[in-house]
């Protein structure tokens, strides 16, 4: 399968501090790819570079063979930010409609897509409430619905399941699988190990560099450890520093 996303030697620094260093990555089409790393490791910066909101100091991002940023590509990407970027004064439906119009989904199609997406994140009954009454988890789900509304080829999710209860999380993962089967490539960041476990492929990010890459099973086998957390510690070269915690 062809690679959908190609990152080539990306460097980025912020206030003279290196945030990302020598990041190269190829993500095949149809994969559910996880970026695993602690907070402050550069996940969000990398995500912003991939979707074109941030121009790296050096290096290139290619999606579907084309250089980012590009308006044609943005039309094919769905994005869910780490903090919910929503309008609290508006209802859930009005929020979705607004972004649907930015992606220029035709009116009739919008209606179908809104009910499908709302169904997927179990918000069908809450669509006409303003977000002032929404909990954090509900806003998270609404952000997700907006991200996949225009049926993007590539879905980029920054910490998508934070604050969502386990039952719903399971159903959202089902949705990811279904989209994946329909051909969608998904990139998600996470710092939760059991979620990383469900990804097809993982890149472990620490202090702005990749320390390892592969399927969860690969990573565990390579490091000779039983859990991803132990594998992370192994590749990070910090076993000694952390043994005290066990």
């Amino acid at each position, binding site marked *: 399968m062809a690679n959908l996303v190609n990152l080539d030697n990306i460097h980025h620094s912020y206030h003279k501090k290196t945030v990302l260093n020598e990041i190269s990555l190829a993500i095949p089409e149809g994969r559910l790819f996880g970026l695993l790393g602690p907070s402050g490791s550069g996940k969000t910066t990398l995500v912003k570079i991939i*979707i074109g909101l941030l121009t790296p100091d050096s290096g290139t991002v290619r999606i579907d063979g084309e250089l980012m940023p590009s308006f044609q590509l943005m039309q094919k990407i769905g994005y869910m930010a780490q903090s919910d*970027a929503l309008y609290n004064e508006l209802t859930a439906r009005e929020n979705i409609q607004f972004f649907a119009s930015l992606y*220029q989904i035709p009116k009739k199609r919008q209606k179908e897509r809104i009910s499908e997406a709302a169904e997927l994140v179990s918000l069908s009954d809450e669509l006409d409430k303003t977000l002032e009454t929404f909990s954090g988890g509900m806003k998270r789900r609404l952000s997700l619905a907006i991200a996949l509304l225009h049926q993007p080829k590539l879905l980029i999710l920054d910490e998508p399941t934070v604050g969502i209860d386990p039952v719903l999380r399971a159903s959202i993962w089902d949705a990811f699988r279904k989209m994946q089967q329909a051909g969608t490539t998904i990139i998600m960041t996470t710092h939760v190990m059991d979620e990383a476990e469900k990804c097809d492929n993982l890149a472990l990010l620490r202090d702005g560099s990749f320390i390892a890459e592969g399927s969860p099973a690969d990573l565990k086998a390579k490091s000779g450890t039983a859990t991803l957390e132990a594998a992370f510690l192994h590749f990070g070269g910090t076993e000694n520093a952390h043994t005290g915690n066990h």
Partner: protein
Amino acid sequence: MRIQAIIKRIIRQFLRDKRSIALMMAAPLLVMTLLWLVLDMEDHVPTIAVTDAPEPMEAALEAQEATILKTDAGRGKEALENQDADAHLLFDSGQPELRMEGSNPTATSAVQNVMSRAVKQLNPNAPAFELSFLHGSSDLNLFDNTGSVLIGFFVFFFVFIIGGVSFLRERTQGTLARMMATPLRRWEIVAGYLLGFGLFIIIQSIIIAAFSIYVLDIYMAGSFLSLLVITLLLAVTALSLGTLLSAYAKNEFQMIQFIPVVIVPQVFFSGVFPIESVEWINAIGKIMPLTYGADALKAIMIRGDNLDAVTMEIAVLIGFSAAFIILNVMALKRHRTL
């Protein structure tokens, strides 16, 4: 269609925010009314203490609009000190002397008016002028004169604040970045904002202007439509400046900090205070949008000019808006280079 989506969203948001609507629509009316109460006063009727005045002088003074207190020299002095009288007229061995209280310029000039009219009555041979006005009338007071500028100022001020804070919030709540992750063009955001707020700006301009003219009875020689054109242009300038400057504020508080720096100086140089005699101060006013708006408003409201008499002001206001809009589209590059 994308611009349309932004317009629709802004209107929906604004309609749900009752307080901001009140701030934009009702607050300027309240302040205009207060100013009207303060500035639209009847002429001051001076109180003059008189000591030992000759009979004809006393009669002449009493014929004017003034309150006359007949006192002896000591009581007259006391009345001045207690501010019971605005002036003390005494005749020391036939030689008149007028002593002013002097702390209130309005009272001082009212006394002078009364005195000169009384003197003229005593000496009818002095040449009398026939008074007529090219613009305005003898009833044109401070409220009529500064009110025209203040209409422009309030439109500018409230649009600047509301537009600037809305755009700032777009950034702090992350929705600006989220919009930038869609194929939305940078200029489409700016255009959407101008048009979305444009509707409320038009309503606000109509309300403020109609209220000032028809309720507060401010002096109005020109056409209502010309007035609306100018306030609308001022509002567009304020909106584009507010949204541009919001890029340089981290939060609402920092947006408020622009008021003393950007808004207040414009009031001083826009013609509320007479400054035309000092050339370098005039030059400062030339770089401020409100100056041109105020000049045009004065021309229309007081001199009764048509729009073709203020084409220069209109051109400058359009120029300011265009510059701010272009700068804003460029400032958005910080969020996405494309």
